[in-house]
């Protein structure tokens, strides 16, 4: 699988070429070119911010359709803890789990149960690796991807433990094979996801060679159907839940850290805040921190772009739901141990480098500095890049030209028209004249027409092109 696989895509039919997404993207991965947005897959971390902001719904997450469960002889649903936070007046998780079974899944395996195993493994890991602190959570795939491309010095601080989704998938697959006797390929392990980032994880995981999750559904797709089946379950739901407070808490920001029983932690949510924390971590501005929990979405996973409920309302619901739960119900036993540690390492991917080697990058940075002084510094986005500096970098990478800047074009037109009017003046008062001046005049008019055409191309409605 492509190591820069990403699940956030553009629907060019719906894209109007506005600048909302380019301005919002935290890694400056989007450009508007020829009137349509384009996502640079090397820069994109699948955080989903562009999906949230796009007023034309042109940004989409790729995930599987509900009927995918028919492809398998036996299916296990893996509900994310954030799923439980989507329902009004829910007092018992078992209603959700039994609802999923009525919906057509043969079994359910809670990701929150695996999360309790991961919490326990993390507590042990922290104790045994006091020299590597602080450890950074690796549960949010967007955060891991961000660190991989932008914070090389922090890679060694990544917690080398599989996220709950993976541990859950491994345990669910093992259990299903044992119970049914079916071969692995006839069993579908299906995650119900709050975000596109998990789709990316499943397709191109970091820390493990191949994910045991077979398909990913969106919470927002499952939600309306599940609601109906939950009503059919009624109040007396069969006890199938195997997780407690710690596992359910993973659904919101600070939940993972709370399961570590330490006060020396930091939990940040929202991608911009995450980036600020990572910058400061890189500069070693924190002391005595044991653990850093980072979630790309506001509020944590409950703020994922594939959820339906407002994340802050969802958090209240999650808190209420876990109130009378036991602290934990799933523990790290010998059966789960083998699925916990990472099996592959993460390599730094220097995608933001300006050139292929230091010398080339060096020349290009000099050019960028010079270009930045010439560009207007308004960061208007009309060129299709989010800032003047980003345009300057695109220019030196050979992906854009100075004429993409509307102010540069305007300046050029002014200069040309001034020169041509001086020439015309000279001809009028007789200082210059005769036929030899005509080609010069023609050349000026041609250049002005060219620049005008370029400007027209930029503002033309792309659909009428």
């Amino acid at each position: 699988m492509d190591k820069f696989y990403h699940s956030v895509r553009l629907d060019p039919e719906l894209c109007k070429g506005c600048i909302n997404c380019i301005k919002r993207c935290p890694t400056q991965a989007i450009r508007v070119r020829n009137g349509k947005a384009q996502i640079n897959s090397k820069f994109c971390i699948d955080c989903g911010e562009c999906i949230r902001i796009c007023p034309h719904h042109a940004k989409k997450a790729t995930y599987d359709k509900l009927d995918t469960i028919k492809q398998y002889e036996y299916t296990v649903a893996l509900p994310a803890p954030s799923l439980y936070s989507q329902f009004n007046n829910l007092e018992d998780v078992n209603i959700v789990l039994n609802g999923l079974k009525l919906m057509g899944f043969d079994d359910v395996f809670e990701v929150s149960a695996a999360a309790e195993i991961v919490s326990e493994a993390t507590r042990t890991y922290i104790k045994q690796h006091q020299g590597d602190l602080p450890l950074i959570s690796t549960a949010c795939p967007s955060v891991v991807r961000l660190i991989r491309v932008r914070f090389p010095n922090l890679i060694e601080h990544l917690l080398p433990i599989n996220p709950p989704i993976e541990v859950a998938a491994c345990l669910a697959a093992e259990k299903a094979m044992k119970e049914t006797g079916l071969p692995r390929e006839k069993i579908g392990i299906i995650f119900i996801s709050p975000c596109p980032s998990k789709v990316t994880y499943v397709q191109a995981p970091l820390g493990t060679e191949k994910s045991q999750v077979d398909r990913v559904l969106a919470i927002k797709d499952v939600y309306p159907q599940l609601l109906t089946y939950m009503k059919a379950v009624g109040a007396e739901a069969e006890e199938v839940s195997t997780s407690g407070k710690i596992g359910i808490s993973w659904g919101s920001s600070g939940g993972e850290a709370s399961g570590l029983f330490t006060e020396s932690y930091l939990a940040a949510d929202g991608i911009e805040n995450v980036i600020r924390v990572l910058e400061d971590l890189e500069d070693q501005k924190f002391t005595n921190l044991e653990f850093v929990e980072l979630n790309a979405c506001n509020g944590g996973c409950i703020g994922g772009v594939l959820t339906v409920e407002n994340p802050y309302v969802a958090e209240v619901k999650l808190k209420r739901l876990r109130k009378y739960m036991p602290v934990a119900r799933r523990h790290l036993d010998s059966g789960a141990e083998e699925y916990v540690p990472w099996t592959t390492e993460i390599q730094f991917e220097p995608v933001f480098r300006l050139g292929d080697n230091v010398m080339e990058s060096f020349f290009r940075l000099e050019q960028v500095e010079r270009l930045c002084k010439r560009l207007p510094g308004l960061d208007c986005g009309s060129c299709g890049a989010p800032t003047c500096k980003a345009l300057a970098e695109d220019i030196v990478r050979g992906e854009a030209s100075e004429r993409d800047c509307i102010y540069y074009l305007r300046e050029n037109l002014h200069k040309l028209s001034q020169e041509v009017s001086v020439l015309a003046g000279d001809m009028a008062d007789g200082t210059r004249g005769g036929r030899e001046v005509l080609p010069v005049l023609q050349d000026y008019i041609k250049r002005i027409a060219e620049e005008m055409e370029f400007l027209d191309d930029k503002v033309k409605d792309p659909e009428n092109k």
Partner: protein
Amino acid sequence: MADAIRLTYEISPDDFTRAGEASSDVKSKLKRLGVPPEAIRKVSIAMYEGEINMVIHADGGEITVEITPEKIVMILADKGPGIPDIDQAMQAGWSTAPDEVRSLGFGAGMGLPNMKKYTDEMKIDTVIGVGTTITMVVNI
């Protein structure tokens, strides 16, 4: 060979919330250059410490950074009070920082020792009542 990239930063003494902006700008440029991560880490920590020192002790000043493919040279020049005893200032834990910045977590007495620790060369020129110029070099 390319000329050095030269960056100049005015360090304002008036706004403490802006302290650290220069070093973070240098860090982002070094990442664009593909400078090895270890060198970036050294430069950003050493320069950050120096920049904070200029704000706390010297009413700001000017930082010049010269980047060549071989090394990064940081020159931090201020017109502050000067350092009376460099050996003492270099001791870990020694600080003359006022209480109000200590409450923000600064003034732990690790500034100069960290600057030395994270650079390959460091030179301090200081004249009492005139100012201090610190030159730091990190090899790439």
